[in-house]
């Protein structure tokens, strides 16, 4: 976890707008930390792909249930 803090309002905003969708909430907050810690990373596609794959699969299962 980085010392650089995320804007609390953004975190709360994401939580609020997710309306209880914990998978998207976790995914977006994770992306926020990713961006704060690795700003300008040129291999972002790889990292995003992995995160989308992981989260979307969990999200899909949850939605099916």
């Amino acid at each position, binding site marked *: *976890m980085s*010392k*650089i*803090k*995320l*804007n609390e*309002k*953004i975190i709360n*905003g*994401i939580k*609020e*707008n*997710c309306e209880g*969708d914990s998978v*998207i909430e976790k*995914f*977006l907050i994770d*992306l*926020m930390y990713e*961006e*704060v810690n690795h*700003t300008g990373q040129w291999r*972002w*596609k790889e990292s*995003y*792909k992995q995160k*989308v*794959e992981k*989260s*979307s*699969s969990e*999200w*899909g299962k949850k939605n099916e249930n």
Partner: protein
Amino acid sequence: MRIERIIINNYRQFRKADISFRKRADTDLHYLIGTNGTGKTTFLNAINYCLYGDEPHLSKESEQLPILNLQTIQNMGVGETAEICIEVRTETEDNDYVIFKRRSKFIKNSDGSISHEGDTFEVKFIDENKNAKSVTDEEANVWVERFVPKGIREFFFFDGERLDTYFKEVVGQNIQHAIFQISQIDLLENYIEKKLQISLDEYRKEAGKVNPKIEEVRSRLESARNRYSEYSERYIECDKQIKNVKEKISELDEKLKGIPDIQAIESERQILKMRFEEENEFLKTKEFEKKQVIYKNLIIVQMWPALAKSFQIIEEKKVSNEIPPQIDRSLLEGIIKENRCKVCDRPLDSDALNHVRKIVDDVKSSSEIAKQLLLMENPFYLFKDEIINYNQKITEINQNILRSVKDLETISNRREQINSQMAGYNEELISSWYKERDRYEELRDQNLKNLGVFELERTNLQEEINKYTEELNQELQKEERAKEISNKIKFCDASLKVVNKTREKIMKETREKIEQETRRQFFNLVWKRETFENIKILEDYSIKLIHKMGYDCLGSISAGERQMLCSEPQ
């Protein structure tokens, strides 16, 4: 994060300086005030030097001087080293500290000159386990970029004497950019949103390979989105131009405040000149006409008093029954002939006969006069008509002349008024300002029209995008082979919606907070608070200051007030 203390050693005029910034309950905005040469700008440069390794506010005079303190240089022996050390101590929201420290090492050469040996830059902080940590150089620079990014440093440390200029430069987009960076909205907008959209597009392309129908809808969606982006760019560019043009118009309005409208005055001048010439011509015509009427009627006009008198006499004689005569002349002549009164039939004596003869003579002469007078009566009526006609004409001409003279006087007075009003103004220059303003107003109106067109296009395209997105989702739903990828698309889509909503919410809240804070600070400090009604931060983060009378008065406030207002968002 706030700066709580700055320690400077051997930097320019500061051999040793240690300045703390205490936090007050009501405000945390700090102003450094001092007479010229006391080191305000040097102090600002010291902060910049520590964090970024440069001195953006250096004057031409200071550029000539060494960065190392002169006293320190004097005390150094040849081959000896000394260092500049600047520490910027900050306090975080968790009451932890972050210290930025730059050391620049110098050596004294044999010719007395100073050489820069190198820098070390260090950031000290407390980590999440409450342990003191330290990073240097590149890693330390990342910290600076995150806390006080170089690109927006003027929002943190600025030269008060240049605030007014910043205000003009740092409007709209720059402020918005800075606020987005500080509040991390840029992370949502420029990184997560963009990258998720790219990922989503790639997943859609992948899905398109599975089924041609999906590809067809995807391609339509992509085309609509591309056109939407194109119109968005044009919209933004147009909006930017409108803002620039408005700024120019307001600058020109400022210049032209209190200066007469040369173009309007010039056109009034031309109209007055034309009217003067026309009126003058009219006056001359009327004066000529008057002369002609008088000349034509000269005789009758001159004779009119005598004629009028004769007419008066006739009228009087008529009234007194003198004309025509009442005496029967043939009767009297018969009396004389027969020497006998025709009434009583008595003979006449000589006295009576003489008396009758005298009466006959008198009647004879008065009848002649009466006859002449009666002969005059008819032509007199003709003369009378002529003189009435003459009088009417002359009255009418005189009225016209009088009005014309009056009008000419009014025109002359206005022309003189204009001349005195314009005395001392550089009419050519002012006229060029007016023309320039007209051009900008035309440009603004044209751009406003374009803006409306682009907005309409965007609305239509957004509808198209929504329609194709829906269609695409339906096609994906149908395709069993694209189930997994469809799930990723839906997930990205749902995530993007959350990002979008969050970004808009934070933007709105941030703007409202800035507006509230600006209002509070401005009305707490400003000396003319009874003049102003409100402060508004618009969507593009430009500032509107509303006068008590309800109009936007930002352009007319003093430089001091503007500086005050400008410093609030910073």
